[in-house]
């Protein structure tokens, strides 16, 4: 019994973690998840509000604005003073894209995709190369999320982040 008590005391002491969460700086963001089965679903949808715009490119008289990890807003800026959102092209876990000759080159999570935007209202994927990137979508501020947010439901993937107080 005596040794059991000793061992317990040692165990309890060693379990003490002075590095509590409060001592670390954590991200102000929380993950946005998607079911793995929907990870490759890229579709053109109605306009939606911005979450975290990280990149813009111009294609003709339209701006394509990347909403980090969610997809691309399509905005008509023929009149720059009165821009008009015309749609949202959902690309899960997209963190970067580039435009060349009416085509968008992007990542869709770990896949490399080429999307033809010549019909701005109906973009279509013309090429997909699987598992080209080793991407883990990270917090916009580069910090770790709180421990309580790290455990994800099964068969889900982090595609983006949103502010915790939203």
């Amino acid at each position, binding site marked *: 019994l005596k040794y059991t008590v000793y061992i317990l005391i040692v165990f309890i002491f060693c379990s003490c973690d002075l590095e509590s969460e409060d001592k670390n700086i954590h991200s102000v963001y929380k993950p946005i998840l998607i079911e793995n089965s929907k990870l490759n679903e890229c579709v053109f949808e109605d306009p939606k*509000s911005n979450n975290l715009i990280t990149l813009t*490119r*111009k294609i003709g008289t339209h701006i394509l604005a990347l909403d980090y990890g969610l997809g691309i807003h399509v905005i008509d800026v023929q009149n720059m003073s009165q821009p008009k959102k015309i749609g949202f092209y959902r690309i899960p876990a997209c963190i970067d894209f580039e435009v060349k000759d009416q085509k968008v080159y992007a990542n869709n999570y770990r896949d490399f995709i080429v999307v033809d935007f010549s019909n701005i209202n109906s973009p279509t994927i013309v090429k997909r190369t699987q598992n080209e*990137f080793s991407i883990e979508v990270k917090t916009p*501020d580069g*910090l770790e999320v709180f421990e309580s947010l790290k455990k994800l439901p099964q068969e889900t993937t982090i595609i983006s982040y949103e502010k915790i107080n939203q």
Partner: protein
Amino acid sequence: MKKLINNHYLGLFFITLLTWVISVSLSNYNADNHPKLYKNTNGSNGDIISINQDGIWTLNETDVSLWNEFGDIQQTITKPINTCDRFLTNDTFIGFYGRCGNAFYKIRKNIQPFALIRTNHSEMMDLCIADSHLVAVNHNALVSYRNLKEDYVLKVYTNKSDANGYVINQSQSKSLINCFTYCEMKKGEVFYIDSNNGDIKRITFNDANISIQNFANVFEKGAFVYYKLNKLSETEMSLMIENKMYLIEIASQGLILKSVIE
């Protein structure tokens, strides 16, 4: 017997104490305890896509790849170690060290990385490239520029005797969360956000001179916000601050806010 037990207790107490001290020391020896200064989003993952006249360049954990317009790989080379971002001129891929921040690589189609340019700037946060000039900004807000064709430092500005850069930000009160800097460039001109106070600065330069025009109090101050400037054309820029996008016209008299998209 009692003495023996007391010695036992004493010994175990010290063993416990020692074990605890070691475990705490080990838990403190963790890179995560150091401040993290990533360039937002892209830099923390490694940028993946850029386009120049050679084609589409991508960057992943291990490789730099060049693709054709149909999405087929034309060339893959092993990525220089620690390269975590990419910038392009018309004919050159340039990677740079992110957090380590002291070197650039230049890569051209069909050849291995052929140049390593070392800088004195640590932890570069952003680079801007136009023509053959390059401007580097780090979290101490130092700026220099180089002639990439010749691979040498064209001009380095400083107002300090011991620093190889022009100190844009005079404030010494930097903190972890408000020192992100971004810039976007067109020929001979850099737009730079001082995230200590939300000011936008326009830095105009040529081989001989540098001048800074300040647009004070343009955007909100203080708290950490996500800033990103993108040039849309020679006369248009967008500025992203979290969920708002500002469309800005670049005019000779200053920056004109055209609209806000939410």
